């Protein structure tokens, strides 16, 4: 009994953080810390990875691309997940901050997807002899990119803020389901196409055991990308909150 009471009070406190004013308060205090941490992790991880790691025996120096490729991909996927969660909570709890978080996530996630695709293509050229293969992983990332674009375009197409928030949230929920479906469909499609003859792809972490020399800077760089994402997300959400308030004020001015 006491426990449920305590939990529910924590729950309320958590949602209290999403009150726009409260959000602006804590995010402005948290932001400098996150920016410093992001800058530290990112620069250390990337400089360590770029200058002070040995070349891979098989892949040569291209292995250095991993410090950009994998973290960007990580953030891109989890960004979509965050968009899903933000949209869901908007539809359930009607809290503006949550949908604005989703809105702010989209461009960042799209940029991260683009980085993952670009670095992947550049990496693919020397390793597989081609910039692009229609491999399940690559293809599903491309699909993810398209989903981000659709979400952003729908936001910009609808005038009324709340309508746009509702409709994009529905799109994000449905899109998430279809993104998952596409992921597995793509897996099926590509296996069906070149059974056995596919180039086996060593995408670093998952398929090969990666040695510590590479893994430690990678970990730092992943943390750096996540923190950078968080920093940009907070900035973006703050911008969106302000933009919303600005729009309301301007509307009021027009009416007077």
């Amino acid at each position: 009994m006491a426990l449920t009471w305590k939990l529910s009070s924590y729950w309320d406190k958590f949602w209290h953080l999403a009150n726009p004013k409260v959000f602006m308060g804590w995010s402005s205090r948290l932001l400098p810390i996150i920016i410093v941490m992001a800058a530290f992790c990112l620069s250390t991880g990337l400089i360590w990875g770029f200058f002070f790691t040995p070349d891979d025996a098989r892949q040569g120096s291209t292995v250095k691309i991993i410090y950009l490729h994998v973290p960007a991909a990580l953030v891109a996927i989890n960004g979509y997940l965050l968009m899903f969660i933000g949209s869901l909570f908007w539809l359930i709890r009607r809290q503006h901050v949550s949908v604005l978080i989703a809105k702010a996530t989209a461009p960042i996630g799209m940029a991260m997807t683009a980085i993952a695709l670009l670095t992947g293509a550049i990496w693919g050229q020397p390793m597989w002899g081609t910039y692009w293969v229609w491999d399940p992983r690559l293809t599903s990332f491309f699909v993810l990119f398209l989903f981000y674009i659709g979400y952003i375009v729908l936001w910009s197409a609808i005038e009324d803020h709340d309508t746009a928030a509702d409709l994009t949230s529905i799109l994000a929920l449905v899109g998430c389901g279809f993104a998952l479906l596409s992921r597995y469909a793509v897996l099926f499609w590509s296996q069906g196409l070149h059974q056995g003859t596919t180039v086996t792809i060593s995408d670093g972490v998952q398929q090969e055991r990666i040695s510590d020399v590479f893994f430690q800077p990678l970990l730092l760089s992943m943390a750096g990308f996540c923190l950078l994402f968080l920093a940009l997300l907070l900035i973006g959400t703050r911008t969106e909150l302000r933009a919303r308030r600005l729009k309301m004020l301007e509307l009021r001015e027009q009416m007077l």
Partner: protein
Amino acid sequence: MIKLFWRDVTLAVRSGGGFGLALIFFLIVVVLVPFAIGSDQIMLSKVAPGVLWLGALLACLLSLDRVFGLDFEDGTLDLLATSPIPLEGVYLAKVAAHWLTTGLPLTLAAPIYGLLFNLDFEVRQLLFLSLLFGTPALSLIGSFGSSLVLGVKRGGLLLSLLVLPLYIPTLIFGAQVARSAAIGQNFEVPLVLISIVSLITLAILPFAAAAALRINLR
């Protein structure tokens, strides 16, 4: 609901929008393909199942903005929203009408167009089957997209931008069924999978589309 369905069907048939245009568009796409790829008979029959699927999919897009668009403009949708039929039902009736006037003709036409690519009877049969199970999903997803962009002026381009990525799973499985005969794999698995896609969309999208309609009518 049934009345609504027939009303939409007759409207589509009378205006000539659904039936005719989509089929002609499909035919033109099919005719353009050899110009793009070359007249090599063997190569054409290799890519034909995929091309026919893609053509049907694009033809399906053409009439989507009418699914709710016209009724939204002239206010019929507001009346429908206040009628005893839930909006989920309105959506399903609209989807059924769209499928009957677009999906079904395309399904029937595809095996005939397949003759142009010198496709075997078996491949054409599978093409027919896969479209039969796949086009309902195309109508369902497309109408959902149509319900999203109702309030947007000239939402046609936006609509295809939103809908096309959602079509990916359907296209993958559908084209796989049609191709599997040509490359000698069994077609049952993708056929089951495409039916699953159709059923999943049927189970989920009515609620999403009705929610979108309610938001747009607010």
